[in-house]
């Protein structure tokens, strides 16, 4: 939907309306700040810790570079893992 809207906006040559910008910004920030309230399971922090421990066994990693995120899209949940490995890690 958002895509179609932005396409329409693009064709019209108009900027996105500020209300839709507000909505997107809020959805992004609140998913981060208060995941428990959004129906996300509370095992996410523990899952993140354990993943971190497993990865650290194989490659040195910055804890900040492991992101675990749960998203709801219609009928299904999307568990998103984003792990950025440090540059120049040699394979063992």
């Amino acid at each position, binding site marked *: 939907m958002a895509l179609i809207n932005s396409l329409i906006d693009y064709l019209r040559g108009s900027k996105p*309306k*500020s*209300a839709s910008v*507000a*909505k997107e910004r*809020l959805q992004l920030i*609140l998913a981060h700040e*208060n995941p428990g309230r959004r129906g996300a399971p509370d095992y996410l922090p523990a899952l993140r810790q354990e993943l971190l421990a497993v990865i650290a066994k194989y490659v040195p990693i910055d804890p900040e570079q492991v992101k675990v995120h749960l998203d709801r899209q219609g009928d299904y949940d999307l568990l998103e893992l984003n792990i950025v490995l440090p540059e120049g890690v040699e394979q063992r």
Partner: protein
Amino acid sequence: MAKVVVITSGKGGVGKTTTSASFASGLAMRGYKTAVLDFDVGLRNLDLIMGCERRVVYDFVNVLTGEATLTQALIKDKRLDNLYVLPASQTRDKDALTKEGVERVINELKETFDYIVCDSPAGIEKGALMALYLADEAIVVTNPEVSSVRDSDRILGILQAKSKRAEEGLEPMGEHLLITRYSPKRVTLGEMLSVEDVQEILRVPLIGVIPESEQVLQASNSGSPVIHADSTDVAEAYRDVVARFLGEERPMRFLQPEKRGILQRLFGT
């Protein structure tokens, strides 16, 4: 069985006190014996909005410390027979509020009142936590604006974690979303978050939408809760909120921009 309702929001200036005054008045108009309590210790304002500021003798803190009884401190509303106001203290600090003290006062009120409406201060500190601690139902007042929506989300998390119901694992508090200062015209122009947007983000059942209106300032100027401003959109919207709270079905109103008549359009008024 008496019910405790907290009017809260996180952010300041969104309409908590305006809502507390009108909601409590609305319950009293419907025949329920209602007390409305100001939890904003140090910054009392409910008395002004209710128009009883010159009749304050004792306050909430006096009752907590035993310097006055509830009967002495409660101020009877001049418009409605079954409505009473408990003002906050203007001089003490918020540490005067303790869980035990507040619980004792609310339990005493429960013996004679049907509804106890708690007007929460802004923020998430002591006063706000005490206002929500004993609540059975919460009305979360939100403006269709980013900082207000974010703070409402925060306060909803706190309701679910820090209330007595949460602490004791009882049935969770009932949550209601009230959107205030809504401007249908700006929503149509894409300049303001819509009711649907806010609902989708906060995921709390909607109890009403109060349109942006000059009436609110006029009501506070004169110290008369805006629900008394007969035949205005705001008063009607608040009466709908009270009816829905009492379990009646009422369609949402005032969500579309006002239609302008031909004459208005011609003369641009």
